[in-house]
C-alpha cells in the first residue's frame, strides 16, 4: 500500500555505481553464505540457501507484477498458500474411506455448482431487465440451498473419517513435483478470477483488495477441513529426494562417508540439501531465463510503457486490462510454484503459518531492496533478505550473550537481556532494511 501509481522506477536515474554491479553483489552474497558455512556450519548454510532460492522465486513472481506492471499485489500470501495446497492435493496419500464416505456428495456439490452457473448463464442470455436480475438471484439462492444439502453432509462425513489422523479427502499420492506444476496452475486460476474482479482498481485499492482476498483464501483453506485438513495440518509429505535416514542406513553410503572422512549423518544432510538445491536451482534458472527474455522483448517494453502511463498505452492500442491480468496471473503462478516448493522442502502444509507479514510484505521488501523491475535485482533481494531474516535470529542471541557475558547470570539485567534476545531479531531486520534503502533507494540492482 503506497501512493504508487508513480512508477516503481524513477526517471533520471543516476548511473549505476560500481556497487550496483550484479556480479559483485552476487559474489558478496556467496561469500556471506560461505562465511556461514565456515563459521557456523555447512548444513546451516545449505538450509538457508534452499529457502533463499525459494524466496528468490517468490520475488520473481512479485517482480513480474510490481516491477514490470506496477501492480501492487498484497495477496502474495494467498497464492503461496494455494501452491502449498496443490502440493498436498498431489502428493498426500489418498484416503479411500473418505472418498467412500463423501466423495459422491462432493462430486454432486460440484455438479450443483456447475448447474447453477449454467442456469444463471441461461437466464442472463434469455431474460432482460428486472426479471433477469430477479431470476439470477433466484438461481443463486436455489443453487446455494441445494448445494448446502449435498455439501454439508458430505463434508461432515469426510471430516468424521478418523479426524485425528486424516479427516480429509487426501491427495493423489503421486510425486510432489507434479504439485509444483499444479501449484502454478491453481494459483494462476485463482489469480485469473481475482484479476477479473479486482484488476481495475488503482494502486492502494488493488493492494488492499488483494490483501483481503488472500485472507479469504486462507480462511477457506483453514476452515474447509475436508479439502485441506485445515489447521490440523498435513504433515510428512513425501519428498522428491532421498531421506537422510535411508542414506544413513545404506551401507554403500556409510562407506562413502567413511572414504571422505565425514560423519554419515552430516554427509546425508548435505547430500539431501544439495539435491533439493539442485532441483530448486533448476526451476530458478529456467524462470529467470524466461523472465529476462520476456523483459528484454517487446513484451517487456510494452509492460513498462503500461506501467509508466496506462492511459497513454491504452491510447496506443495496448489492452491495458488484459496485459495487467496477464502479468498478474503469471506472477501469481510463479508464487504458487514457490509455495508448492516451500511445502516440499518443509515436508508439510500448515495453514496457520501463512501470515501476511512473512509471505506478502517480506517478499515485497525483498523485491524493493533488491531492485524492482530488475530480475537479477529481485533474485538478489530474495537471497539477501532471507539470509538476514534467518541470521538476525542467531545474531540477536549472540549479541545478548556478548552483552551479558560480564553479568551475573542470575541478576535482573541478565535475565531481562535473555528475555530480550529474540526481539533483537526484528530490530536488526528493520535496521538493515532502513540502511539498505538509505544507500540504495532504488534497490541494490536498480532497473536497467
Amino acid at each position, binding site marked *: 500500500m503506497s501512493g504508487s501509481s508513480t*512508477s516503481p*522506477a*524513477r*526517471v*533520471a536515474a543516476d548511473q549505476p555505481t560500481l556497487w550496483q554491479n550484479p556480479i559483485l553483489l552476487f559474489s558478496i552474497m556467496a561469500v556471506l553464505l560461505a562465511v556461514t558455512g565456515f563459521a557456523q556450519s555447512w548444513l546451516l548454510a545449505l538450509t538457508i540457501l534452499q529457502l533463499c532460492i525459494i524466496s528468490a522465486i517468490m520475488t520473481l513472481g512479485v517482480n513480474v507484477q510490481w516491477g514490470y506492471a506496477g501492480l501492487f499485489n498484497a495477496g502474495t500470501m494467498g497464492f503461496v498458500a494455494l501452491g502449498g495446497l496443490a502440493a498436498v492435493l498431489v502428493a498426500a496419500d489418498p484416503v479411500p474411506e473418505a472418498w467412500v464416505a463423501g466423495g459422491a456428495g462432493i462430486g454432486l456439490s460440484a455438479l450443483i455448482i456447475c448447474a447453477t452457473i449454467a442456469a444463471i448463464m441461461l437466464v442472463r442470455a434469455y431474460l432482460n431487465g428486472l426479471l433477469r436480475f430477479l431470476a439470477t438471484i433466484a438461481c443463486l439462492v436455489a443453487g446455494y440451498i441445494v448445494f448446502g444439502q449435498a455439501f454439508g453432509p458430505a463434508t461432515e462425513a469426510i471430516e468424521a473419517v478418523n479426524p485425528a489422523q486424516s479427516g480429509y479427502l487426501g491427495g493423489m499420492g503421486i510425486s510432489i513435483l507434479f504439485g509444483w506444476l499444479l501449484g502454478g496452475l491453481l494459483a494462476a486460476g485463482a489469480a485469473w478470477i481475482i484479476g477479473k474482479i479486482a484488476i481495475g482498481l488503482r494502486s492502494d485499492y488493488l493492494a488492499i483488495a488483494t490483501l483481503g482476498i488472500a485472507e479469504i483464501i486462507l480462511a477457506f483453506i483453514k476452515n474447509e477441513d475436508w479439502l485441506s485438513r485445515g489447521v490440523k495440518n498435513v504433515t510428512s509429505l513425501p519428498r522428491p529426494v532421498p531421506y537422510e535416514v535411508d542414506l544413513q542406513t545404506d551401507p554403500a553410503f556409510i562407506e562413502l562417508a567413511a572414504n571422505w572422512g565425514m560423519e554419515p549423518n552430516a554427509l546425508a544432510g548435505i547430500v539431501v540439501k544439495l539435491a533439493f538445491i539442485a532441483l530448486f536451482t533448476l526451476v530458478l534458472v529456467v524462470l529467470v531465463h*524466461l523472465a529476462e*527474455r*520476456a523483459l528484454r*522483448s*517487446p*513484451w*517487456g*517494453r*510494452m509492460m*513498462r*510503457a503500461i*506501467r*509508466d*502511463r496506462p*492511459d*497513454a*498505452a*491504452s*491510447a*496506443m*492500442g*495496448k*489492452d*491495458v486490462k488484459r496485459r495487467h491480468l*496477464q502479468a498478474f496471473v*503469471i506472477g501469481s503462478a510463479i508464487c504458487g510454484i514457490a509455495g508448492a516448493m516451500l511445502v516440499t522442502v518443509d515436508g508439510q502444509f500448515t495453514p496457520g503459518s501463512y501470515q501476511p507479514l512473512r509471505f506478502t510484505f517480506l517478499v515485497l521488501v525483498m523485491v524493493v531492496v533488491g531492485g524492482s523491475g530488475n530480475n537479477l535485482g529481485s533474485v538478489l533481494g530474495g537471497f539477501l533478505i532471507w539470509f538476514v531474516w534467518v541470521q538476525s535470529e542467531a545474531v540477536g542471541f549472540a549479541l545478548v550473550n556478548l552483552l551479558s557475558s560480564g553479568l551475573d547470570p542470575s541478576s535482573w539485567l541478565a535475565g531481562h537481556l535473555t528475555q530480550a534476545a529474540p526481539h533483537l531479531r526484528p530490530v536488526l531486520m528493520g535496521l538493515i532494511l532502513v540502511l539498505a534503502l538509505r544507500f540504495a533507494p532504488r534497490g541494490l540492482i536498480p*532497473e536497467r
Partner: protein
Amino acid sequence: MIRVTDLHKHFGGVHAVDGASIEIKTGTITGLIGPNGAGKTTLFNVIAGAFPPTSGKVELDGEDITGLPAHELFHKGLLRTFQIAHEFSTLTVRDNLMMVPPSQPGESLISAWFRPSAVRKSEKEISDRVDEVLDFLGLTHLVDERAGNLSGGQKKLLELGRTMMVDAKIVFLDEVGAGVNRTLLNTIGDAIIRLNKERGYTFCMIEHDMAFISRLCDPVIVMAEGKVLVEGPADVVRKDERVIEAYLGVGRKQAAKHEDTAPSAQGATP
C-alpha cells in the same frame, strides 16, 4: 469520417458536454476552439474512449464506436495525443516509438520466448520506421534519452511522432501548442500539414492560438458551454460576433495588430 450526434457528458451536476453534434470530414484538419471549460477536452476524451458518454452517439465511418475502449479505437485507426504530454518516462525515445505499432509478434510471450527470429525481424522493421520518424521530427540526437528527460516541446513532438508510427486514419490533437515555443510550433504545424497532405491523415485539433488554428485548420468548430456554437472556415468563424464575445474578445489594443494580420499556411512551410 467521425460523426458525433447529440453527445452529453455529465460529471455530477456539471454538464461538461451538453448536446454537441459535430462532423469531421475525411482529409480535413478540423480545428476545435472555445472558451475554457467549454467541454473540448471532455469531448475528445469521450470520442477517444477514455470514458463513456452519458448519452449520445459517436460513429467512425458509419460504424457505431460509442463507448469503445481506447485500445480498440486505436486498432480502428483513431489516435489521440494528450493535452499534457503522456510520454513513457522510463522508456527511451526509441522505445517510446517502438512500442506503438500494433500486433507485434514480440508482444506475445509465446513468441518472445520461442520465436526469437520472428521477433528480431519485426523489431528491425519497426526500428527502421522509428529512425525515419525521428529524422522527420528532428529528434534523432535524442534517440537513447529517457523520454522523461525531454523538455516540454520535445515531449509534444514525441506525442506527434507516435501518431506517425502507424497508418492512422484520424488523429486528435489536444493543445499541442500550449507551452510550446512558437518557432517549434511552426515546425509541428508543418509536420501536421505534411502528414495530412502526404499520408492522408485526418486531424482534429484543439488549440487556443488563433494564428496557428487559422494557418492549419479548415473548418473550425467553436464550442461553448458544452454545445457547438459556430462552424465554418477560420476567417469566417473569427469574425462571428458570438465567437468574439465568448472566446476571442475584442483584442487588446497592443495585440490587435498581430491578431488582425491574416495568416498564410504557406508562410512557414519550407
